[in-house]
């Protein structure tokens, strides 16, 4: 080892000044070592049990896609039902979700990529019940990607020069290779991720068909991972097409069988959305009637299946499935 001693240093040209989830790759590794199951032990459980065991008050929560499109909606309902508190939400590529969770009393901090500006958000900000930190959709998924790589930060070619940068955890440094300024953003390792997928086995080997935002990155970056799946399939089926596996079992803590789990949204290739109920949630948020929505769709039911059964009905669910006609590509 004869390299010369360092003579140089890299100036930090600019730094965002907002709070961000602590960056701790070694702490994450130690958590993985001590808590993640590398054994092939079944981890199938109910949504209730999964949320009780793996979502704690104060957790940083990542969810994949959003309430209207392959959202983990059974798990979102269960978080609301269990009245989790002080969650910090990864508000990337989200729409109604942040407002819903804020008004339900679950979320008090949000990293913003995009979410629907609306009366519940405005009230919460005014009343000091919500803090927002500024990013963008891609910067948030980049942070998750860094988290999924086990590294403390990633360089990016966007975000520099924005006011979001100043209200974030980003830094502008001098790239030691080119001498040019380069933005770096802190890795994000959420405490818990909730992810809805098309298929999974009981160990958590999971398949997503179609596009996504950052399903794989969220699963690998998060300390605790709950997968909800439309279908539970045999591990032999997983093994027959290993190229179709998106998420490996060792990243996953709980698997929930959740047919129609994205209702009222779509699970692409499996079923379309329920447009009138999609519009109902949108309208509830824009008219500040989230509590009424929760009293109708979430709180009266012990489980999501009970809600689907009593409030939606088999005929409507079948119609949503029939309406999903663009099916090419949604299979292993």
């Amino acid at each position, binding site marked *: 080892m004869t390299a010369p001693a360092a003579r140089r240093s890299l100036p930090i040209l600019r730094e965002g000044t907002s709070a961000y989830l602590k960056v701790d790759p070694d702490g994450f590794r130690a958590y993985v070592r001590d808590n993640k199951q590398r054994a092939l032990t079944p981890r199938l459980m109910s949504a209730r049990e999964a949320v009780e065991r793996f979502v704690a008050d104060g957790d940083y929560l990542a969810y994949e896609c959003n309430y209207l499109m392959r959202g983990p909606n059974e798990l979102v309902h269960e978080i609301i039902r269990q009245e989790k508190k002080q969650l910090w939400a990864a508000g990337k590529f989200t729409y109604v979700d942040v407002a819903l969770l804020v008004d339900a009393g679950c979320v008090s901090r949000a990293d913003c990529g995009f979410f629907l*500006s609306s009366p519940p958000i405005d009230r919460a900000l005014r009343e000091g019940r919500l803090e927002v930190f500024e990013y963008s*959709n*891609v910067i948030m998924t980049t942070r998750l990607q860094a988290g999924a790589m086990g590294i403390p930060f990633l360089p990016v*070619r966007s975000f520099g020069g924005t006011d979001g940068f100043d209200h974030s955890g980003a830094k502008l440094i001098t790239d030691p290779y080119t001498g040019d300024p380069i*933005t770096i953003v802190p890795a994000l390792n959420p405490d818990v991720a909730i992810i809805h997928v098309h298929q999974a086995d009981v160990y958590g080997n999971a398949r997503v068909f179609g596009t996504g935002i950052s*399903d794989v990155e969220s699963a690998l970056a998060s300390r605790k991972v709950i997968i909800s799946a439309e279908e539970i399939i045999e591990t032999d089926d997983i093994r027959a097409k290993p190229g179709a596996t998106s998420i490996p079992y060792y990243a996953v803590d709980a698997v929930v069988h959740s047919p129609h789990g994205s209702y009222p949204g779509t699970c692409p290739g499996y079923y*379309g959305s329920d447009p009138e109920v999609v*519009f109902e949630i949108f309208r509830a948020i824009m008219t500040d009637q989230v509590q009424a929505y929760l009293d109708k769709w979430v709180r009266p039911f012990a489980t999501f299946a009970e809600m689907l059964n009593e409030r939606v009905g088999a005929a409507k669910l079948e119609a949503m499935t029939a309406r999903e006609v663009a*099916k*090419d590509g949604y299979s292993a």
Partner: protein
Amino acid sequence: MTRAEAFSEREVAMCTVAHLVENGRTYWAAGGGTPLYSVLLGQKLYAPDAQYITEDGVVAPEPLLPFEPMMTMVASRAVHHALLWGTMNSAGLHAQLGHMDYGVLNTLQVDQHGNINSTFLGEYGGSGRRFGGPGGADTIAACCWRTILITDQERRKFVKEVDFISSPGFLDGTPGARERAGLPRDTGPWRVVTPWAMYDYEDRRLRLMARVPWVTVDEILAECEWKPLIAPEVQVIEPPTEEELHLLRTELDVRGQTTDAAGSWITWDGEKYVRA
């Protein structure tokens, strides 16, 4: 092509952007709605080998039209028969690599240097009003070679300095400001399109370059809180055609979610277009 008898202002803006769409170029359309419809309109009528990419990493789909309500991304009809299904990260990375020629965005507020605000009106953290945030627009505005912005022609939308830079234009307008902030070289705002006008940039400052026939330059300037530069010769924008409107109304924005949202209607009175 047939002269159109009546159309909305939002339809004018989409048709104007459609005319900018070039064969053999890639378009990264922010979210869904106006940007996506504009690119699809241009592709289907004028530039069949223009390709588009969405925030969820869909490369060159052949969407099954019409879209489901609110579902211009991720949903199966929207991503149908793409060449590749990726993720938000793959879309962002392909843009960082320089594969995206044009970014198409809509926005709340734009300033003299093309900076975009979609986060906050008023003093940030104060008593102003919060909006949705940049979404994908920040990366599009940073990494595509040229950015096309769609907005309405309203005083409060054209300002000297935006209250909050959500997505970067030319920043403070000095040469190299983007590069000093770590953004890729030779990128930036290219056009702003409203229902009344089209703008380009001269020395990184917004410049009025074209107007629709039924609006004067003075009327446009009256709807700019901060006055842009004016090109020596302000060109006249072609009004929408019946063919364009037919496609827009029957296949793209079939529920009028986008086109009904704002603005007046324009009608042909036998001699000229008039604004209702």
